[in-house]
């Protein structure tokens, strides 16, 4: 299966978008080679602003550009875009409901060797808590491209979470991503795995393995964490009676929490959450880290078996 990092797909999509839409401007914080905004910078130098290693000012500047009708894409690593500049995102973008797209790469532990300081495991929680903010975690390159265009069409602040590591391309080009709609990749009877980002790939593999054991497990790609597709969550709960969430993020405040909130209020069924269990990451290869922190096919399978016992 072909692989591409979602940041790479982002960088390419931005150029395409920039050709179509003059209003698109891009800001980066000295990481354009990593976030892949360098492609846009090369083609549209006058619409690209390198703001240096100063993420707070970057967000404020993006807000000012949005006030004048521009569609700014503000990029950095996820930890800096959402953490370092959190309060600027809150007060200068989300509260005034400005049309800024925060597109951050290097989310999660697949950052790898750089270690915990650079591995954002709480960004979804931070962005999800902000009123007016839309939160999107694409699963592959095709969905990322779609999400970039959807974000540009959407009026209001968007957080787009991207990864460093190359991940399999799951979708054909004719796939149509829609903000707020989960996409069912696999129908099941016994349980459903709800995943986002790279975990969608692992969830599919886990579901296939479990099928060999005679279990029918559905997979839902929940690429929009907010607004969450409540209907799809409730449907999955009703149809299969047991859910497992999988995310490259803390189990506190991310997809697992969002799903748990819906279940608790609307359709309580047993739920297990796969994700970082209230811990920071560390240095290591992405593969080693994914295995160590339980973001693995084996651990997803284990959680499915466990949740079935609770039914």
């Amino acid at each position, binding site marked *: 299966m072909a692989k591409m990092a979602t940041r790479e797909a982002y960088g390419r999509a931005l150029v395409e978008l920039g050709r179509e839409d003059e209003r698109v*401007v891009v800001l980066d914080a000295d990481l354009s080679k990593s976030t892949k905004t360098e492609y846009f910078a090369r083609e549209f130098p*006058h*619409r690209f*602003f390198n*703001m*240096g290693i*100063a993420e*707070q*000012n*970057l*967000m*404020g*500047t*993006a*807000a*000012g*550009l*949005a*006030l*004048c*009708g*521009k569609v*700014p894409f503000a990029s950095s690593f996820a930890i800096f875009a959402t953490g370092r500049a959190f*309060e*600027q995102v809150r*007060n*200068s973008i989300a*509260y*005034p*409901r400005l049309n800024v797209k925060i597109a951050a790469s290097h989310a999660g532990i697949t950052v790898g060797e750089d270690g915990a300081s650079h591995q954002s495991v709480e960004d979804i929680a931070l962005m999800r808590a902000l009123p007016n903010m839309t939160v999107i975690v694409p699963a592959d390159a095709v969905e990322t491209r779609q999400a970039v265009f959807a974000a540009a069409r959407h009026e209001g602040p968007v957080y787009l979470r991207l990864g460093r590591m190359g991940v399999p391309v799951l979708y054909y080009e004719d796939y149509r991503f829609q903000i707020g709609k989960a996409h069912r990749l696999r129908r099941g009877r016994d349980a459903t795995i709800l995943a986002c980002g790279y975990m969608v790939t692992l969830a599919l593999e886990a579901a296939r393995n479990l099928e060999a054991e005679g279990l029918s497990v559905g997979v839902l790609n929940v690429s929009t964490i907010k607004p969450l597709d409540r209907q799809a969550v409730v449907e999955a709960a009703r149809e299969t009676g047991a859910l497992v969430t999988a995310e490259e993020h803390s189990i506190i405040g991310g997809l697992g929490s969002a799903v748990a909130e819906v279940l608790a209020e609307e359709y309580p069924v047993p739920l297990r959450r796969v994700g970082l269990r209230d811990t920071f990451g560390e240095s290591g290869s992405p593969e080693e880290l994914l295995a160590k922190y339980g973001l693995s096919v084996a651990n997803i399978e284990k959680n499915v078996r466990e949740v079935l016992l609770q039914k």
Partner: protein
Amino acid sequence: MHWLQDLEEKARLIRRDIVTMIGAAGSGHPGGSLSAVEIVTALYFHIMRLDPQNPDWPDRDRFILSKGHAAPLLYAALAHRGYFRREELLTLRKLGSRLQGHPDRKSLPGVEMSTGSLGQGLSVANGIALAGRLDGRPYRVYVLLGDGELEEGMVWEAAMAAAHYKLDRVTAFIDHNGLQIDGPIREVLSPEPIAAKFRAFGWEVLTIDGHDFGQIIGAVEEAKKIKGRPTAIVAETVKGKGVGFMEHQVGWHGVAPKPEEVERALEELEGGKGRG
């Protein structure tokens, strides 16, 4: 000098409204609203190109109140300039009011940006100036920062960026009243020397008496001639200016006057006494 008398009269009326509205609200920030009255009055009634009937006119000059706690001053200026009716000033800080405790761009016409969390306005002004340059629009952007606000690191990120991007359409006023909530700025955490810092960051710097309309307007005229770099106007001001018992008093940063204090202040701000 008719225009000067008109501005001084406008400033007096705005001061009265500030005191009245904060008194009616029972909370708010009189000291730092009163210190910047001449700056904001000069901007809204002499300097900026605006159309209150068309608040979204793309070519309008912009004003960003980075020290958002001076919202009563901004509201009074907007009301006097015709953006909304003056009676509405008395709704300040009340549930459902468009006059939020700190400015909210979504609720009130004429408010360019939601501010209040200090240190963020200059960055926003930079973004507006960059957009203006991209679109070839002639507008200028004015920002008002507090001197205590300069303790926020983000201000200096923005100062660096404004110089780097040669944003000569950006003019930042520093309301140098010398006081912040916990005391004199020099004692709390000195941002001094302010003029030298901005100069070192690549800005043109002018220092003026921030209560002198001639100097305010003159400084802006000079800033307009400067090409290739932004201008900081360090305005020497008196916190609580115009209300004797509030002047130079740290305690009046964020405390509302009681009804009898409002009365005393309004007496002092009566017209025809030769005071500003």
